[in-house]
């Protein structure tokens, strides 16, 4: 049974559908990457999965259990973590407090998970008493991912984790995504840096106009000349 199975998802804001039948499935230990042009509905799809957007038609299953239109805090309880693209830290809280908030529903986990998150992101340990708002963009992204990991999710949703980062930090974030994944967390992320993202992806989903255009393994999509021509910039 797939970890996440989205079937024919339709949804949008205020009666206007942005998603027009998206299909997406990833297994428990996989990295799924959503790419596509602007306005294709990539981030919208992620929001639909995390209950931030009303799903009008179709279904989303987490380990076979329907979860569409559940509120976000219920989804966190069911093992889903979400890292928004912007405003993804609590700026006036310290790094440690940010992480603690991620484990709000599982306060018994805090000590153990803090250690694990500091292992994933060593720079955070040094800055743990500093307000998250004072960190650099890359470190802030680590705080955001760390916060989501604190609840021990089985599926982590990342909305453009490398947006606005320098190439140096970008590679670091991709490495960390791989690391988190190898610890047994399924990943579904939206990425603008399609080539790099597909290179680490087990599953790739190319969306356009709210529908799947290509769905295959990351490697196969990278090798497909048609995908390369229309979506990867040649």
């Amino acid at each position, binding site marked *: 049974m797939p970890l996440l199975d989205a079937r024919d998802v339709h949804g949008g804001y205020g009666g206007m559908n942005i998603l027009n039948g998206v299909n997406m499935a990833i297994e428990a230990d996989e990295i799924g990457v959503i790419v596509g042009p602007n306005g294709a509905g990539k981030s919208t799809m992620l929001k639909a999965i995390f209950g931030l957007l009303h799903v009008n038609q179709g279904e989303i299953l987490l380990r076979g259990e329907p979860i569409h239109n559940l509120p976000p*805090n219920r989804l966190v309880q069911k093992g889903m973590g979400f890292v928004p693209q912007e405003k993804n*830290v609590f700026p*006036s809280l310290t790094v440690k407090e940010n992480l603690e*908030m991620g484990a709000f*529903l599982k*306060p018994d986990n805090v000590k153990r998970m803090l250690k694990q998150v500091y292992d994933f992101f060593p720079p955070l340990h040094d800055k743990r008493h500093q307000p998250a708002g004072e960190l650099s963009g890359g470190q802030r992204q680590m705080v955001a991912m760390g916060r989501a990991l604190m609840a021990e999710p089985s599926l982590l949703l990342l909305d453009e984790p490398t947006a606005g980062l320098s190439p140096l930090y970008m590679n670091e974030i991709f490495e960390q995504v791989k690391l988190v994944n190898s610890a047994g967390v399924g990943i579904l992320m939206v990425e603008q840096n399609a080539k790099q993202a597909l290179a680490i992806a087990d599953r790739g989903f190319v969306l356009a106009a709210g529908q799947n255009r290509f769905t295959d393994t990351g490697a196969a999509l990278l090798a497909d000349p048609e995908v390369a021509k229309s979506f990867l910039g040649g």
Partner: protein
Amino acid sequence: MNELVFFINNVVIAGSVTGSIYAIGAVGVTLIFSIMRFAHFAHGDMMTFGAFMVLLLTTAFPGAGDAFGVPSALVLLPLAMALTALLAVGIDKAFYKPLRAHGVKPIVLVIGSLGVTLMLQGLIRLFAGTSGQSLYVDDRKEIFRLALPFEGVRAPVVVTEPQLYLFVITLVAVIGLHLFLSRSRLGKAMRAMSDNPDLAQASGINTNTIVAVTWVIAGGLAAIAGTLLSLDVTFKPDLSFFLLLPIFAATIVGGVGHPYGAVAGGFVVGFAETLAVFNWSVLLRPFRDSLPEWLTQSGNLAFVGTEYKIVVPFFILVAILVWRPTGIFKGKVI
């Protein structure tokens, strides 16, 4: 030296009394704003309601304090805090929550809270009448006179019993709030929600719980401020309503959304008010020989008359909004 004592009595003590009341009130206003993003105009009457609960309870159990040797009103204060907290949560459920659910603009909530304030005031008048009433059962406040150990000092430093309680309870409330916000899981979640409500929700924080906790704290603090104020003077149905302006001035001076800023702002406004009505001619008396005549001839050298005291917070409010709308601690702009 007598002039110094006069200064201590009329500025240091009086300013601390006013400042403490403003500080506790402003903390409530700033917490409500940081969680629900609206200026809660019913806060003054929530304070009055707390004092009113103490009045009712002391009437029902006048001997409650005898066993502890403190005024009954203080023993019954925790109960009044609980009742006021309950009222605050109830008002939210009945009026503000439905408005929030409709996704109205903050200004609608502000006007709603204006309605709530008139309602509360009417309700209190209905039961308590319009005249002043003492919260002291036998109406005898103890007065402490501390003679300073200096030669030639005749006047003592005067502190009344309720003022001492006011200082102690303010200190306890501020330290308690600090520990709650910096150490407890719920307190941190409150700060998180103030920072970024969407992310708080995405972290699994139940925002309804945080809203309720905010009202409980704001209601409890309002009861403390109202009761201590009524102990210092007397209970009147419109007593705290007139504090609304200085409390909002204190909130904005401190930086809206900053609990510590609100405390600082409370004392800034409190002392500014006291210093403005203070008669400086008394302090100048020792130097009268070396000062020009026009300065020493005048009997009253206060900046503003006592009857115009309210001008001071008004001026501070406008000045800070014009020159530094984010306040001392860089808060949000209402």
